[in-house]
């Protein structure tokens, strides 16, 4: 009986996985269609992929999107790391909680609100919309996620090490470089990674602050999809899927690395506790 129930539950899980993946499989399947529609598969072709690589405008947009993602996540990680360290050292609990709530505002706000309010901000200070406005917006909404990735690592850090380092005569920069940064490095890496994917994925905020001259991939897909089906997008989505897969595998390894470290620490602490007894 137990066996049977187990099978049923697996069936449900499989159904959910099928539902989650079928649109993506659908897109990739039709990317090889030479019929030009997503309705009937008339024959296998790689023309759509060739079209993607020959479309210099599209390639340019892809490169711009990547550039925005790389730059914005880098800037967000730098500012966010300093921010997280600053929050950690805030002495008053009330202030710390207030800063943290402020930090989280952009995480919980709907994209539309972020986009609209950034648009008002840029026009208010007379900033021209384009590459820089998109970059600044992406930095802005990536910072809170970086902070949230790093804070737990700071809390895991052993406080006494800081004191010990100071007692041994280390200055602030030595404490930072030799103790704080190494112990939060996995958090920084994860934060950079999340910021990068946030930036790649964003549509709504970018849509508000792009202006006329500049687009990212998501905005371009939106305008093309509104005009109807073009299999070039399918081919592009297949390529993006592979890219996402690589990113996810990378993320998995970062996670795994973090985990093993944590587990190791736990093990060590346990061993110490046992040894003390």
């Amino acid at each position, binding site marked *: 009986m137990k066996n049977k129930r187990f099978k049923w539950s697996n069936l449900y*899980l499989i159904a959910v996985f099928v539902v989650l993946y079928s649109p993506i499989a*659908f897109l990739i399947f039709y990317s090889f269609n030479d019929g030009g529609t997503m309705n009937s598969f008339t024959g296998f072709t790689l023309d759509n992929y060739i079209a993607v690589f020959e479309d210099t405008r599209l390639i340019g947009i892809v490169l711009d999107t990547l550039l925005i993602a790389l730059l914005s996540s880098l800037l967000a990680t730098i500012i966010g790391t300093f921010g997280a360290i*600053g929050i950690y050292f805030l002495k008053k609990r009330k202030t710390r909680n207030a800063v943290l709530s402020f930090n989280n505002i952009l995480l919980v706000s709907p994209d539309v609100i972020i986009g609209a*309010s950034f648009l*008002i*901000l840029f026009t208010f200070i007379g900033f021209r919309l384009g590459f820089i406005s998109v970059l600044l917006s992406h930095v802005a909404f990536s910072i809170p996620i970086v902070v949230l990735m790093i804070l737990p690592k700071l809390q895991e850090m052993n406080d006494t090490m800081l004191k010990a380092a100071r007692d041994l005569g280390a200055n602030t920069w030595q404490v930072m470089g030799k103790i704080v940064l190494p112990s939060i490095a996995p958090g920084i890496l994860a934060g950079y990674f999340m910021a990068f994917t946030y930036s790649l994925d964003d549509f709504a905020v970018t849509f508000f602050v792009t202006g006329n001259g500049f687009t990212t991939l998501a905005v371009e*897909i939106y305008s093309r999809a509104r005009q109807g089906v073009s299999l070039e997008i399918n081919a592009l989505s297949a390529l993006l899927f592979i890219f996402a897969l690589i990113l996810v595998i990378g993320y998995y390894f970062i996670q795994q690395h973090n985990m093993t470290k944590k587990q190791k620490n736990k093990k060590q602490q346990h061993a110490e506790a046992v040894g003390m007894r």
Partner: protein
Amino acid sequence: MTKKANVFYFIPYTFWLLLFVAAPLILIVYQSFFNVDGQFTLGNYQTYFQSGTYLRMTLNSFWYAFLITIFTLFISYPTAYLLSKTKHKQLWLLLIILPTWINLLLKAYAFIGIFSANGTVNDFLSFVGIGRQQILFTDLSFLVVATYIQIPFMILPIFNALEEMNPSFIRASRDLGANSFETFKRVVFPLTLNGVKSGVQAVFIPSLSLFMLTRLIGGNRVITLGTAIEQHFLVTQNWGMGSTIGVVLIIAMILIMLFTGEKKKKGAVRK
């Protein structure tokens, strides 16, 4: 010594807080008091609360977000539950998350093909004898696609809550004679309620603002608060009215956060 350094590297972060968190919020509230011609007025709020259209749209928007949340919850809870019982659950979880890394617009675009007049679903419907239906550009298609997109965001917090749960509670409840259903109702579900709450938070608020889906899939039939804001900002250029709706959305968001907040736990985590 450290204090000075603290202040130094805290500057860019504080600058960010002021310029990109506080200022935009203040500006959106400020903008909501101006009409199209740039004159100070309370007219936007008056229009909003007096016209049936805006109120109906808000209500509609909430209703759709509510439906999307309920659907995702019903699909996601069992998934998260079963997922937490599998071997290699981290790997399976990763596979659940993977589709969220594909751009939302690509997934919406896929559904254009699946739901279109000669698309896969219609082929199936005509095959089983129901005949072709108009699926794309209906409320139903919007609900289906929105639910599809939100499922992983609901599974994740529920899964985490299930993982955090102490398994000895379940054993205890079994030992005390409760059957599976009672164990679930009295032990598992209450203990994972926080996960459900954060899932609801993660799904409901974004569902109010899915303007690209209403355009691509809903065929402008469904108008959410997000659609209205986008329309006012980028099409009709009536920023005042757009900001007013934005302020309404922000207030709605705060209310939802208050209802689903888990204050006790937060205090416990950040000592």
